[in-house]
């Protein structure tokens, strides 16, 4: 693969992805492509298959059928290689309660690098979290908003090529949600590819370059927010979704 081909290669390529739990099919047919440097949204109602899709991409779940390529790496065959280039933030994530915020970032950084590079990574995490006066307090004393900021900092400080963020601002107030969206936009400009999921369709419209609507384990529509609104004569993505789901 030459430099031009490598540049053209998509960040994520999902083809015919299926995932079953026994007889229950959580994902029936999921295909989409995420380009490098894009903020890509996966939206749908609860139980549509968003989290399952993200967990498969994060190498947490095994594939029943289909394929998932992340920067040319097969997620099912080379999960350990994939884990080196991704960062995953689950919807309901936590941190080790006996550690301080700083110690938690240091713990994570040591999986990726050592020495000066480790210090630089932690410093970057502290900058993203922006809770200077609380970083030496134990995580168990953090509010929900502070915890989410810490986890976003953890997810982005490692400089992942692909950040997979599930329900990015779940449970946060407007101020915290906006701050975190701003962090994502800044990092995207710096070159990180984002795959975010949300059932908050207005948030996705604000944040994403392109998005896919997922419903009952199937991708039902894909495009830019503007394209989708125009196609379905809708004022916002929520109306697009209602039109498509109907």
């Amino acid at each position, binding site marked *: 693969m030459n430099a031009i081909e490598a540049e053209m290669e998509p960040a994520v390529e999902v083809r015919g992805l*299926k995932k079953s739990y026994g007889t229950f099919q959580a994902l029936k047919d999921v295909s989409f492509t995420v380009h490098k440097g894009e903020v890509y949204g996966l939206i749908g109602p609860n139980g549509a298959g968003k989290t399952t899709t993200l*967990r498969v991409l*994060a190498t947490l*779940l095994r594939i029943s*059928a289909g394929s998932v390529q992340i920067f040319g790496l097969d997620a099912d065959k080379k*999960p350990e290689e994939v884990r*080196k280039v*991704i960062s995953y933030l*689950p919807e309901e994530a936590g941190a080790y*309660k006996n550690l301080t915020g700083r110690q938690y970032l240091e713990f994570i950084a040591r999986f990726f690098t050592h020495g000066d590079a480790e210090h630089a990574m932690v410093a970057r995490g502290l900058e993203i979290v922006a809770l200077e006066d609380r970083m030496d307090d134990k995580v168990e004393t953090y509010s929900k908003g502070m915890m989410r900021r810490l986890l976003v900092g953890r997810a982005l400080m490692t400089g992942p090529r692909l950040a997979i963020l599930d329900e990015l601002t779940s449970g946060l107030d407007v101020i915290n949600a906006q701050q975190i969206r701003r962090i994502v936009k800044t990092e995207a400009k710096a070159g990180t590819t984002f795959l975010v999921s949300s059932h908050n369709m207005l948030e996705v419209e604000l944040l994403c370059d392109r998005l896919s609507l997922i419903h009952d384990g199937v991708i039902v529509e894909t495009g830019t927010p503007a394209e989708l609104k125009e196609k379905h004569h809708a004022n916002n993505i929520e109306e697009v979704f209602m039109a498509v789901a109907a």
Partner: protein
Amino acid sequence: MTALTNIIRKELRELLTPSTVVPIIAMALLFGGLGSMMGNVAVQIQAKPTVGIVAMDTGILANVSLGVVDETATVAYNGTSVDAALQAVEGKSGIAVLYIPANFTASILGDHRGSLEIYWIMRGAGLLDSISSGTVDALLARIGQEISAYLIGTGVNLSPETVLSPITPINTTSYRGMVMEGVSPAILGTVLSNQSLIVPLIIMMIVIMAGSLVISSMGMEKENKTLETLLTLPVRRSSIVAGKLIASAIVGLLMASIYMIGFGYYMGGLSGSAPINLAAYGLVITPLDYVLLGISVFAALFAALALCMVLGTFAKNYKAAQTLTMPITLLAMVPMFMTMFWDYNTLPPLGQAIVFAIPFSHPMMAMRSLMFKDYLFVLAGIGYSLAFAVIMILVAVWIFRTDRLLTGRLTKGGTGEKRRKGLFPLVNLLRR
């Protein structure tokens, strides 16, 4: 339905889960099994002991003694050769050979206590193994009483000491191929039990403490929602498993050491000087034996933690993790009590199979085996424990590489396309 019954139904549904019910059933089965084995002990106490008689004396007091033996014991041999008597008694799972020397009657009537030599065949050194020798001890006491009664009845002029205590037993015990003069099974059993009591207690404590740490660690990862993040970091699944095992082993050993220092002082305060010196009979623990004991403890701990890691994958949260420590506690208690009450050799075949299958049993039994230089049994135990540990670690790593940790079920390969790709799914998963 009233609000009260509604709440009761909800509480029962939450409390009566397989993880709470199964350990209780296991406990009931354990006590049932122990009860049936205790029942056998009661039968043993009531049964007549099988003994051999070598009577070199034909005097009246020898005849009194033989009368008591005929009445209260089953005689497997009655002749003049101690060796033949031992062989016959051994063949009939008997307990002892009584040797009445030629001067027995003359000695007592001469106002000296008569020596009665007892050649014991000891099969086990557990607390309940001494029951069988206890029945012969009772027989000897009865012989003494009958002789006293005869002496009082005939009015012979002897000192009260001789009349009230006319016989002196001279014990010789054979156990695990060793012949020890001047030692009765009761004393030997007590000394050996004291010597090997501390190791089973240490093992049980380490297993329970370190095991519950591993299981709780998995439960906490799930409860605190840190597991998903951990599993997406660039670290091998085997490293996660190994890290948790090693950390728990260190903390478990530390905690057990602190407990055992205190317990050591407690035991030291209770036990006085031993009635016999085992070293005089060659029963010593050499430095090499201690190394083997250490390896045996390490292998058992390794096996326990690996088993706990597998159990830990079933823990949905900290509360569930606490419940899951119950099977480990039971597994640690079974060999401790069984090896305390019985010698491995005196257990029925099913009991032997159970004790051998539980890897924590081996260091509990190693001390006694090493004392009697039964290296094959110790090495077999170490080998088994290590093999058990390796298999459990492979299972734990395999579970870590499936969806089970997050979804609570194993991936079955779904739509078949992936399922057909590998004939050996476990091998494929371990390669991930």
